[in-house]
């Protein structure tokens, strides 16, 4: 048994192709992006080593910090909205008829491409012919906002379709976790005289805390990576008011051809993502994950 299942040639044959692929496409580029960040490399001229010049520039680049701030802000919004998704999931997981249908309907936007969502919401936000402002005017709002061209609100306008897209995804995760709480535990609590509210908050919530922790990481790190939707909807504008880290990096690299500086931003993005993941794990680590 053991001899057959530890056949080295077979293991190599099964593992190496995929391992090689993620090395070439993911890990080597990650290292290289840090290295290219140390290059003076613009357009199609050959690159030249300049040490930490780009990283030094990055630290003093107010545009970079502004885009980082926007990314973090979206991350915080996304994390806060998790509580709403959790509340909805708790309602669905209680004795609601048609819960299965509801959660599937909520999921539909998650299946669409960010490009399609961005185009659709650009039309919804259209000042003259869009759905939203016509609705507002029907309710008597005189000068409805210019959702995507007002620098003061554009980030919030972008956040709405993000919620619209991801709500169903998180609801499905929470719903599955809540349904996984064993009947016996709930029953025991009920026998001890716990009300439905107490069962929900004191029994079910602590039990799904590990799942909640994972979703915080997903929401925060996911927000740091937001790109498609913003790139298509506003391109980071107007006047960088909706610029995020990934769109800033993409613009520097593939519109201005500042590959060296773009690499430095890309590396900073990686570091911030990993740091954030580590930080959340640290902050939410508990000595004992609750188990009954």
């Amino acid at each position: 048994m053991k001899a057959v299942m530890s056949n080295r040639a077979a293991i190599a044959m099964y593992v190496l192709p995929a391992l090689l692929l993620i090395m070439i496409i993911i890990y080597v580029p990650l290292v290289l992006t840090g290295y290219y960040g140390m290059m003076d490399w613009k357009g199609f001229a050959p690159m030249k080593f300049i040490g930490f010049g780009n990283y030094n520039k990055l630290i003093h680049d107010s545009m970079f910090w502004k885009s980082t701030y926007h990314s973090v802000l979206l991350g915080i919004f996304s994390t806060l909205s998790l509580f709403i998704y959790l509340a909805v999931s708790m309602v669905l997981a209680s004795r609601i008829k048609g819960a299965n249908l509801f959660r599937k309907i909520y999921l539909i936007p998650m299946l669409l491409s960010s490009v399609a969502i961005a185009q659709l919401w650009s039309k919804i936000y259209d000042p003259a012919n869009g759905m939203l402002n016509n609705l507002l005017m029907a309710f008597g709002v005189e000068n409805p906002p210019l959702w995507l061209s007002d620098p003061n609100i554009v980030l919030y306008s972008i956040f709405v379709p993000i919620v619209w897209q991801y709500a169903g995804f998180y609801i499905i995760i929470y719903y599955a976790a809540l349904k996984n709480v064993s009947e016996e535990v709930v029953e025991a609590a009920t026998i001890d005289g716990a009300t439905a509210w107490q069962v929900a908050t004191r029994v079910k919530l602590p039990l799904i805390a590990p799942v909640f922790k994972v979703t915080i990481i997903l929401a925060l790190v996911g927000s740091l990576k937001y790109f498609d939707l913003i790139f298509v909807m506003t391109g980071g504008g107007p006047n960088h008011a909706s610029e995020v880290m990934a769109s800033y990096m993409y613009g520097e690299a593939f519109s201005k051809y500042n590959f060296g500086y773009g690499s430095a931003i890309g590396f900073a993005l990686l570091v911030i993502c990993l740091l954030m993941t580590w930080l959340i794990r640290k902050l939410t680590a508990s000595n004992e994950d609750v188990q009954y």
Partner: protein
Amino acid sequence: MSELAARKRSDADSGTHVKARWVGRIGFGILYLILGILAVIQIYPLLWLFLFSLKTNQEVFGMSPFALPQNPQWGNYPKVWSQGHINLYFLNSVWYTVAAVVLTIVLASFVTFAITRMHWKLSKLVLGLFIIGLMIPLHSTLIPLFNFFKHVNLIDNPLSVILSYTAFNLPVTIMILLGFYQAIPREIEEAGVIDGCSVHRIFFRIVLPLTTPVIATTAIINMIYNWNEFVFVNTFISSDRWKTLTVGVNNFVGQYLTDWGAIGATLMISIIPILVAFLLLSNRIVEGLAAGSVKG
């Protein structure tokens, strides 16, 4: 429900008045109302998109956006299908998606089998490398990848896109497969070994066929991701010949800024395959999304 709990509940019921039950019913009514409103918010924008894809420009610009199309312009669909290269983009999307899904599932099944069923020292470390891939922002790889593909002459070549899709989808695919593989009883391959099967025979003839259900789940999840992917195609592909629907649709919409009917029809064409897949396979999609995200 145990007897004791049931008695408690009936005690509580008889103890409360009819009034309380009414309050409970109204409470439930309000909950349903909220759930219903949320459902409308999630669906109505898509319905609205479908409606304006059937409108003329006079209707879009002259009438309420909530009006139904007076004379549905079904012609918008064949028009954009043949005019804006949409048929070509659609075909590209289909075959890139299929190629990447097949490649991803084959490679991921190999890896998951080796990690969960075979004995070797570095298996934990290798698994870790795949799983960490989930946290990596793909934008951090974009410039070096672009440079690499340029040097090996794969820029503006579908292979660059398919390989990137596969590499970045391997982590989530392996994660979904993992739980299923771990649940397969050891006795199955023990029987295989006793019968004198080689490892390859055990994998291809015994284990792989058992995983058909989870392969279906990963296939549909991969299909959705690949179909919707934007950045890689937008960066690595420059000629219309090789563009996919997401990028093609985006360029098309950029060109036809004022023709809402055409824009609506293009967007509808790009999302219909996903909606059809969802109608047919919603349970698998739900299961795959939940499994792929949390098990880590």
